[in-house]
């Protein structure tokens, strides 16, 4: 699947832009703050009905304007698809597929699979364990609604159990019968969720390893491990054991809501020992593994957005990544960069179809391709 044309009006700092893309490699080059990432965000928006960065739609409108429009012409499974999104201040946003408006936005999400790698993803390594659980959950629930349902129910039961513990403490009472019903729900759902996460990590781990080895040339030993209290013994027993502590803490101290992913470099935690470049490599490998996973459960090939990928990585690694994503296992790619020389050197060597766009303060011009012929001016303010 790929996006053939994108048209943007008043989205973030982009006043009016119309672009035609290569089905393979597309690069946006320009200085800081000119709107490269906003172009990626526009493409992201058309897939997920929201911005990657800012979920408040009124703040995604260009300053002093009243509305924004995003329109994409896609080719999906050899069919043309026109996706339109319009948002006007004070109104509901409109999403149309081939001129037909969606009743619910959730019907659209999943139609145009997409993976974005952005510098803000470092929270996956540096942030708390909730970031990593969110990563696992969002990937698994993409094609497993049952899992999502179990997760919602688990969190609900957890909330109720914690409330009950607080009630016990506030009223100086203890009703084991009452607690037991929530324990039973947590155990039943928690064990299923734990099993699913285990399976998922089992599938993800080798793919991740493959990508990391490729990008780093196999010089570094990294591991990705699923950690859960449930892996260490039966959940029901642990809940019973922790009861006294839970009553003091007034919340539940064991369960899958404490799960984490252990990211290691050699024998040490990535968070503490990894260099910035290693962390970035780790992240890219993880996200590419996610890409593989999403591709395997979707009919259409996902689009890959690489935001500021060259930052902090050495030239060798960058070339490896570009080579990797130009291959057949990946579809259409979008890359942003501040420095043209990087790409000028690397991209022609890769040999895939490409287009380079120069972005200057909200305007975009095409600045090179390998289709032969002069680069044509696509849009100029």
């Amino acid at each position, binding site marked *: 699947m790929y996006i053939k044309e994108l048209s943007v009006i008043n989205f973030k700092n982009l006043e009016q832009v119309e672009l035609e893309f290569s089905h393979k490699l597309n690069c946006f080059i320009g200085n800081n703050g000119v709107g490269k990432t906003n172009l990626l965000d526009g493409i992201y928006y058309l897939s997920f009905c929201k911005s990657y960065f800012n979920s408040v739609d009124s703040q995604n409108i260009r300053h002093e304007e009243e509305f924004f429009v995003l329109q994409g012409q896609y080719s999906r499974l050899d069919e043309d698809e026109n996706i339109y999104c319009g948002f006007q201040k004070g109104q509901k946003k409109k999403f149309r597929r081939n001129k037909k408006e969606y009743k619910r936005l959730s019907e659209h999400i999943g139609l145009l699979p997409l993976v974005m790698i952005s510098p803000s993803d470092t929270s996956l390594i540096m942030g708390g364990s909730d970031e990593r659980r969110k990563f696992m959950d969002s990937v698994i629930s993409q094609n497993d*609604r049952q899992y999502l349902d179990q997760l919602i129910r688990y969190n609900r*039961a957890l909330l109720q159990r914690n*409330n*009950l513990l607080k*009630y016990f403490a506030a009223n100086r009472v203890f*009703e084991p019968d*009452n607690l*037991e*019903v929530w324990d039973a*729900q947590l155990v039943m759902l928690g064990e299923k969720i734990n099993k699913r996460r285990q399976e998922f990590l089992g599938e993800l781990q080798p793919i991740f390893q493959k990508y990391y080895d490729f990008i780093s040339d196999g010089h570094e030993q990294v591991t990705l491990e699923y950690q859960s209290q449930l892996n260490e013994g039966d959940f029901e027993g642990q809940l019973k054991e922790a009861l006294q502590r839970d009553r003091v803490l007034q919340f539940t101290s064991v369960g899958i809501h404490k799960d984490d992913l252990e990211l290691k470099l050699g024998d040490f935690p990535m968070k503490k020992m990894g260099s910035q470049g290693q962390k970035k490599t780790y992240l890219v490998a993880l996200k590419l593994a996610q890409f593989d996973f999403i591709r395997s459960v979707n009919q259409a090939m996902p689009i890959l957005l690489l935001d500021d990928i060259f930052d902090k990585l050495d030239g060798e690694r960058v070339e490896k990544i570009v080579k990797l994503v130009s291959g057949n296992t990946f579809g259409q790619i979008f890359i942003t960069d501040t420095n043209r020389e990087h790409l000028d050197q690397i991209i022609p060597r890769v040999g895939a179809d490409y287009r380079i766009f120069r972005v200057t303060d909200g305007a975009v011009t095409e600045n090179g391709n390998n289709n032969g012929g002069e680069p044509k001016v696509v849009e100029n303010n």
Partner: protein
Amino acid sequence: MTQDTFPSKLLENAVTEFAKLPGIGKKTALRLVLHLLKQDKEDVHRFSNSITRLRDEIRHCKVCRNISDTEVCNICSNESRDHGTICVVENIRDVMSIENTQQYHGVFHVLGGIISPMDGIGPADLEIDSLIKRVGEGDVKEIILALSTTMEGDSTNFYIFKKLKESGVKVSMLARGVSIGDELEYIDEVTLGRSIINRQLFEQSLGQ
């Protein structure tokens, strides 16, 4: 309408009372009150009487805890119903829904809510003890749990089940799955998944 000045204190009082009702804001309250003012006095008296009598004279059936005019409600005092089967529901609205199906001929037990620590509702606040007592006393053969399919409903089901386990009474639950007249492609995956797990023999479905 933030700080409205009403020309009449009587009017203001009435509006304030109406605005306490669920789903009624100040504007709607004013509209209702002005409407009442336009009606005949007798009509308005009948209206206010019905509310006063409702509050003063309503009772809860001493058997099933349903709202009733008499000590024992119509359903519980009906000899032709099957008193060996008790359907456990949250409130009177559920009783009415199940009655409307005309498929149920047993009796009810109204819990008055479901267990939810978040809302400060524990088993002791519900009519669970009276249900256990009822099962212990009478000739009850089956309990049908008909609570909402939420986390809280499930937990309440589980609590009741645990409490009734020793009595040996049969405990069943409403079937969960595809609703009648649905096209498969529009059913959410969780429900459809549950329907496949809980499938039934075709023979059983005949004549239903």
